[in-house]
């Protein structure tokens, strides 16, 4: 990567839109498809991932001069696994219901490539403050993407939003949307929307 840039708004917004981990980089799709059957699960998963992203980014950045290159991936994995275990306990302490709904996917945050990717590509090359700001942006971008899927799937698949009924009584829920295939459909739909949006923006840039 190039010489360290100054921290600016880009550091934060990068993950929200331009390099959105899900819609643009297409990383960490496993939890995106698996736990977005309700908006609440999507939000909880997004926040848990954000917590791990921020903490591991901070610690990796602090230790970036201490960790020899040869063992860096092993070190990052230990650091990430530590914060995932902490997130696991914290979620159990906050709400058992959410914990049961997310199931194994909390532990699987360890292997979410967004986190390792950020540690390797960003936190290991930048100061702690920048790493935290960038990780926050990425985490929120990830949460946003999960919510995009979760909201659509819960409304169409169950007629509810955050557990509250939003569709009229006569609405027959499309169960397919809360089942795994629904995850693929809704993800495809959002990717299409994003791609179309980007394309239009680029065309405008050429003609202008």
């Amino acid at each position: 990567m190039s010489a360290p840039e100054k921290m600016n708004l880009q550091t934060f917004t990068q993950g929200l839109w331009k390099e959105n981990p899900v819609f643009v980089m297409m990383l960490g799709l496993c939890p995106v498809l698996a736990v977005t059957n309700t908006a609440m699960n999507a939000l909880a998963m997004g926040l848990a991932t954000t917590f791990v992203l921020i903490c591991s980014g901070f610690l990796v950045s602090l230790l970036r001069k201490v960790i020899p290159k040869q063992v860096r991936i092993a070190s990052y994995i230990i650091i990430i696994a530590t914060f995932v275990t902490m997130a696991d306990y914290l979620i159990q302490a906050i709400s058992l219901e959410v914990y049961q709904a997310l199931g194994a996917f909390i532990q699987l945050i360890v292997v979410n490539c967004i986190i390792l990717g950020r540690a390797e590509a960003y936190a290991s090359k930048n100061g702690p403050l920048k790493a935290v700001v960038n990780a926050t942006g990425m985490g929120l971008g990830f949460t946003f993407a999960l919510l995009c899927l979760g909201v659509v799937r819960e409304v169409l698949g169950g007629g509810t939003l955050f557990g509250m009924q939003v569709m009229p009584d006569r609405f027959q829920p499309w169960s397919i949307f809360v089942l795994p295939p629904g995850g693929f459909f809704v993800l495809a739909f959002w990717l299409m929307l994003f791609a179309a949006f980007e394309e239009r923006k680029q065309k405008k840039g050429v003609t202008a």
Partner: protein
Amino acid sequence: MSDIAQDAMELPPQPSPFRLVGTLGGIAVLSGLLVVMTYQWTKPAIERNQREALERAVFSVLPGAVRSEPVEMTGQTVFAGFDEADRRIGFALESEARGYQDLVRILYGFDPDRQKIIGMTVLQSTETPGLGDKIIRDPAFHANFEALDVSREVEVVKSGAKTEAWQIDGISGATVSSQAVGQAIRRGAELRERVLAFYRGDQTNRTDQTNLTERGGQP
């Protein structure tokens, strides 16, 4: 010497193995420390949550219960539920059976006087969302367990085909999951026998005690 070995010689000097191991060890110690701290810190809250969840489950299968008390049976703990007047309503028993994807664990309320199940809740399941997971909330399915006769073998029938008190109306589209609940209840027969034996023994004791206090005279 091979080319590969020569290439390796030209690379920047390797840090000593001690440094590598030391770094990893240091990070692991730090990690252990953080995990233990979080564990200690969240332990009371987690235990409280689990206790509350179990208590909620016990109260939900024993309508009217406001207090519960664990009773040790051989190999298993059941919960006795008491109402406001401290009368025993029944016992909450746990059971499990294989569902569509994984074990379905249920808790149900058992009234030994009438030999009936008076409530059921699913403690743990990974049934298909939208289909099998209806066993958790579907009101029509749960109505089966308001007064289910367990004096004889319980039977799961097709949705809407229930005619007898010992039959369970299944959920259409969730046959396997409904069957799992029925199976879990059938499997509890032996435990129910033991609870019944305990209950009868306890009741005779209790009547003796009441008689004693009555004879002793109350102010």
